[in-house]
């Protein structure tokens, strides 16, 4: 059974680290400070330059905050994205602060 919680090392949201990310479809998390997830997003079929493009856009919008990211490459980005949001709500009681509060979402009670 696949791990439903995000794993992987946090990396600083900086141009150098983002440049090493591929242009694949997938999901990502942003945190600020480290380990405090503030946003979950995905690079879908219409994302220009995939994960690298989405993270670059986030860097451009980020202002001067210290921020970290981690990502998973997956073609099932929509179901994984929804799953990650539901897991976050199950663990923390609410969506990440910078996600759309009106997101159409189900509920999950992971073990």
């Amino acid at each position, binding site marked *: 059974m*696949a791990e439903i919680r995000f794993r992987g090392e946090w990396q600083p949201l900086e141009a150098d680290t983002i440049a090493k990310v591929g242009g694949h479809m997938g999901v990502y998390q942003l945190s600020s400070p480290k380990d405090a997830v503030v946003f979950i997003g995905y690079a879908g079929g219409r994302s220009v330059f995939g994960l690298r493009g989405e993270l670059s856009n986030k860097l451009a919008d980020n202002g001067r905050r210290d921020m970290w990211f981690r990502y998973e490459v997956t073609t099932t*980005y929509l*179901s994984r994205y*929804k*799953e990650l949001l*539901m897991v976050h709500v199950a663990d923390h009681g609410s969506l990440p602060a910078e996600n759309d509060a*009106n997101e159409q*979402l189900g*509920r*999950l009670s992971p073990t």
Partner: protein
Amino acid sequence: MDLGLTDEQRMIVDTVRGFVREQIIPIERDLDPDADELPPADRARLVQMVKDMGLYCPDVPEELGGPGIDAVTFALMSMEMSQHAAGLYVPCYGVFGGSGLAQLFEATDDQKERYLFPTLRGEKKGFFALTEPAGGSDPAGAIETTAERDGDDWILNGTKHFISGADRAQFGITFARTDKSKGRDGVTCFIVDTDAPGFHIRRVIHTLRSAKYAMEIQFENMRVPAKNVLGEVNKGFAIARDRTARQRIPYAAVCVGVARLAQDMAIEYAKARSTFGKPLASRQAIQWMIVDNEMDIEHARLVTLNAAWKVDKGEPFVAAASMAKVVATEAASRVVDRSMQIHGGMGVAKELPLERWYRELRIRRIGEGPNEIQRMIIARDLLGTSLR
């Protein structure tokens, strides 16, 4: 069987076709290519449009508040409603409503008030949970979920998987073993409330289909009132059988619709694209693929409409519905595969819906009863043999 459409059927088909092209596709162009839902404001507007057209919940009988559209017309509608990117699993993104859980037509008046009518009004959502980790093709044999009587309640324990829509549902229809000694005659159908203690959604099951994902649910000492038994105790499997067989017809029809659109795209592309100074359409290799597509589509369309016609005539239809499911899912898979080949590299790009249909059609040959099971049903009809 009259192969011509009545004036009313022609009008409905034209109306739905126009709705898909003028309302659904323009919105869909801005959505993710795997999207399965519309922005809420668009959805509300389009649901109202469908209600104003008198086509909301088209497969619901008049005595239950629907328009009572016959099976043939509903199949024709389904062939039109599916002609867009998300059309295979969410025709028109669900704005036409519909019975979905037609098993509730067999409910008591109290159950209809609490579950069916709110669902038809769009106030509640339900899920259907039959498949378990031990198997889905032989549910009567594979069901390990148990229900034990405790006073006025039943206590459910067990796991169901590949269940769509459970995470957003207010209730679900599920099946549990109430008498271990009786095989398929020891299974009971229950309506469960998802806000009750002991109901858990454990995980998303990621598949080829990123949209309309499936889930694993668990009943953990979940208390269900006896008034939520659907039908009779130990007779649950009969409820599953008839309605499930009937639903294979629109299941087949949406495959025909997707195949039709893939073929239209292939023909348009073959005429426009040139290689070595001539359009693809002039090449015999391409022509034969397009001809094979057309024969597949026409075969699937006629077999599907024949099954619907048997329903409307009150004739035995279970084998015909199975045949429609097999023929349409396999034909559509071939049509989309050939259409991708004609499109070359663009056929596998997410800029076109072909790659989505290709993935989703693979599931279609397994979902709603694998095609091997459908062939067993047809064989039983032809040979009079038991599946067991």
